[in-house]
């Protein structure tokens, strides 16, 4: 079920209402949430519910047994079982065909050809997300950072909690699981702020992401035909498409959780205002980057084993992150670019400090921030080319075509021949400007709090405007909702 579908528009009010009817009874509430979450997931394909159930059951048992045993070897075996089951499912469903193709391609490099056909495997929606979420539980219990739960119902609900089941935020058991032990009282302000956050998420998804997607798809699906400003505009638009698509989903997920009293972790924090790639990853998909930090980077040694190993660890984490996003070389290169830049940024820290001191540059000056934010955005955009392109060949075509000077075409309205007519184009631009202003404004003062302080007539006027902006300017052709990009990961 998609958040931007009519199905969900019926599902959510029903679930929300019934949830608050049973909210006082913890068991009834968690049972209801579990059924609702399974229904939500099963709406897409009920057969894959078994995967979630198996994953949940294995980790629940492993967690329980880990707590019972003190033997290091046995504990390792138990952790291994959890990793094997969870990563086994993930690898089978997500990477089998990628490994087969890579294997065949590598033979081709040596002039040999193999006749191996790929498998017809359907990728279960959200498998990358809930696998990481449930793994965090087992690893934390293994590390003795978390006491395992005896409450199987809460655990199953934690794994399948429908707001963040299919595209995150990837919650840690230590943060989310205890929330299922509590009982909640209806909090009007919290519910209202949750609904507003959901509306803002829908605005990002339906008004911005799905609108700019029209232009992006036209250019990226025909990369040979577009050059210069065309590919540049498409790439910049993609940067906003993926941001609005994914952060929009996160906003809706967090908003839903909030309406039911749950606090889901923040996933985005105005990432395009970052002044370095390192900072970008502190603001972009925060739940994933912190997951990799805690469960991959630190176990690899983090920064404790010397400079060279630190660089290696950083680079490795981003390579894995690329692979997590998608089973294709384009994603691995995308991860590699980020890894490489982060390594470089770390390596030049002393040089940068020396340069600042020598040239007496104020690091906090607006011009300095703007300059580095611009550089960072440029690097992020270059990397997005690999992320979005349909193949490596297409990615390189886009990059090389971007260098072609065809700017005279701008005078002849070339900008409006990329799938968006002038009005649609400017609607997209205005919406992006509103988004950036909101990001900027929100950092200084919580917009929702500000709105809550206004009088009722004004508030209702704003609410109605938000709904109508989404309804009129949203892109939802013939009531068919568009999938969120991160559903494929």
């Amino acid at each position, binding site marked *: 079920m998609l958040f931007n579908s009519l199905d969900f528009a019926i599902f959510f009010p029903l679930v929300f209402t019934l949830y608050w009817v049973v909210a006082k009874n913890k068991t009834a509430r968690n049972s209801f949430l579990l059924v609702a979450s399974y229904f939500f997931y099963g709406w897409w394909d009920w057969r894959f519910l078994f995967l979630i159930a198996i994953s949940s059951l294995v980790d629940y048992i492993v967690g329980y047994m880990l707590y019972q045993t003190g033997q290091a070897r046995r504990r390792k075996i138990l952790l291994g079982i959890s990793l094997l089951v969870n990563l086994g499912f993930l690898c089978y469903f997500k990477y089998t065909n990628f490994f087969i193709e890579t294997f065949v391609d590598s033979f081709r490099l040596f002039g040999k050809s193999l006749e191996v056909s790929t498998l017809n495997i359907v990728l279960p929606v959200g498998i990358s997300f809930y696998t990481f979420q449930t793994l965090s539980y087992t690893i934390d219990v293994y590390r003795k950072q978390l006491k395992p739960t005896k409450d199987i119902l809460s655990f199953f609900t934690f794994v399948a909690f429908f707001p963040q089941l299919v595209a995150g935020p990837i919650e840690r058991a230590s943060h989310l699981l205890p929330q299922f032990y509590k009982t909640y009282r209806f909090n009007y302000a919290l519910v209202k702020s949750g609904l507003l956050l959901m509306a803002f998420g829908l605005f990002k998804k339906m008004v911005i992401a799905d609108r700019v997607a029209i232009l992006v798809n036209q250019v990226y699906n025909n990369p040979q035909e577009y050059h210069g400003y065309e590919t540049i505009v498409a790439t910049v638009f993609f940067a906003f498409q993926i941001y609005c698509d994914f952060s929009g989903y996160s906003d809706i997920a967090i908003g839903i959780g909030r309406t039911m009293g749950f606090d889901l972790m923040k996933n985005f924090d105005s990432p395009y205002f970052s002044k370095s790639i390192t900072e970008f990853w502190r603001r972009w998909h925060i739940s994933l980057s912190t997951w990799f930090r805690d469960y991959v980077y630190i176990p690899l040694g983090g920064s404790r084993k010397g400079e060279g190993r630190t660089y290696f660890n950083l680079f490795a984490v981003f390579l894995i992150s690329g692979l997590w996003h998608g089973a294709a070389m384009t994603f691995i290169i995308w991860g590699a670019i980020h890894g490489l830049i982060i390594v470089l940024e770390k390596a030049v820290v002393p040089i940068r400090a020396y340069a600042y001191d020598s040239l007496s540059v104020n690091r906090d000056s607006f011009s300095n921030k703007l300059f580095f934010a611009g550089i960072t955005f440029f690097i992020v955009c270059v990397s997005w080319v690999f992320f979005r392109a349909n193949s490596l060949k297409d990615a390189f075509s886009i990059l090389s075509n971007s260098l072609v000077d065809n700017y005279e075409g701008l005078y002849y309205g070339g900008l409006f021949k990329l799938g968006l007519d002038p009005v649609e184009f400017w609607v997209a631009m205005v919406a992006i400007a509103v988004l950036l202003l909101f990001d900027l404004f929100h950092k200084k003062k919580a917009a929702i709090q500000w709105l809550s302080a206004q009088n009722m007539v004004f508030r209702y006027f704003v609410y109605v405007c938000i709904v109508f902006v989404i309804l009129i300017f949203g892109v939802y052709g013939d*009531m068919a909702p568009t999938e969120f990009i991160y559903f494929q990961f």
Partner: protein
Amino acid sequence: MLKFFIRAIFFAVLVFGLIAFSSRLFLNKEKLQSIKSKELRSDREDIGIAFFGSSHAYTTFDPRVFENEIKVKAFNYGAPLQNLMVTLPVAEEVITKRNIRLGVVDIFQSTIVEPPLTERAAAFQYGTLDYMDLSLDKVEVHNRLYGKQKLLNVFPAIREHALWKERFFQPGFALNRDDDYYRGFKTQMYFDKKSWEKNTRDKDTFAAPQLIQSEKLSEGQKEVIDDIIGLFREKGVPLVFVSAPIHRRYMNDKYFTYLELIKAHFKEKGVAFIDYNALWDELNLHLYDFADISHLNSSGALKVSGHLANYIKTRFIGMEDPQVPNDKKLKANRYYHIDTGFKHVLGHQRITNNSISEKTGILEIAVFKDAYDRLEIVLIGDRLKDIQLKVSYEVPLHETRNIPPSVRNRIDGNTYVQRASLPDLKQQSTYTGFKYHGKEFKVVLADCPFTEISGLRISVGDSGPATRVFTLDHLQLKESLPTILP
């Protein structure tokens, strides 16, 4: 919690109310739905006779004829491919809200097609649904036609939201266009020889249609027909089923068979049914009465409407509306003006120049205002020939700022000029002539979106508009009905 739910319900009602209210903004202002919605909303009075059906209905039953002949207010609810399944809730709403005293439902093979409808046929049903008020019936029939996934499409504001640019900035001018309606009836339908020949090239011979024995009305088809009959009976409103004529040369076996099956079903049910295909000779229908093979033009519509009006007048006594005739309401009804000798028009002139009358056949010219801010110029004679006509008037320049380009282009200096060519029937070109109560007339429409004009001049001739036959120094058009008889 209670406070929240009360506010949430209030907010949902507010939003849905606004969506429903704003939906009319999203209708194509040049299309039937928008025009009918506007007409229906601007006039909430009772309706005496309501017509339902597909395009056959809205090109055949001219409310002006019924207004003039029976003195009853009529409205044509016909819409493209209107299925009887959709007619049912519309008729129910109309019966309840407009207190109709007679329903006329056009029926033929395509209007009784059962779901699932083809994508095209399903899409056309919005033509009817869009001028229904929001109700459970409307939602139910929408759900039946399109499924729950498209339920919100019931609101044009949602269904057509992507067209906001076109719709918000679409001028509402109803001038100089082909789609004119008078109470739901499409008024500008003509015979055009070129398009006729283009579309009918393959059908030169006429073969009488044959009954297909294997065809039967399905239970579903009978059910939807019976539902309509049941509705009208339940509400105590008389009902007449009709079938508008199509050109007999192009009636195929299936169309003919279904007409016969429908006829037999109505006989069994004891319901009045007039098949105008069977009255071809009685109505003296001619090629020039058609716009295309399955739709009458304005001339053919006049003949069928006249016949139906007469039928209703003799069968349904007491249909007259006490408020009709009313000069104010009938000011745009050309048949009323013809019948009343043009006593209530802006201007009327008899042609005294014999040579002009001989060359053109015109004996009288009358000018009045139609429903769309235009001057309707009616030329009357016993036998109208080729006519060239020129209309000119001086426009108030301060009112030209907001007029549509189509009108502005006709203004030279401060003079609006329009020329028209009204060829004779014999030329078999675009024929624009009619016969009503023994008088032959032709009509020219001249845009006039002004509150007043001066120096109205009309010149006519056979090979060019040579002789001025009509002059009016000043016209106040905003007034309800000035009577100026020069």
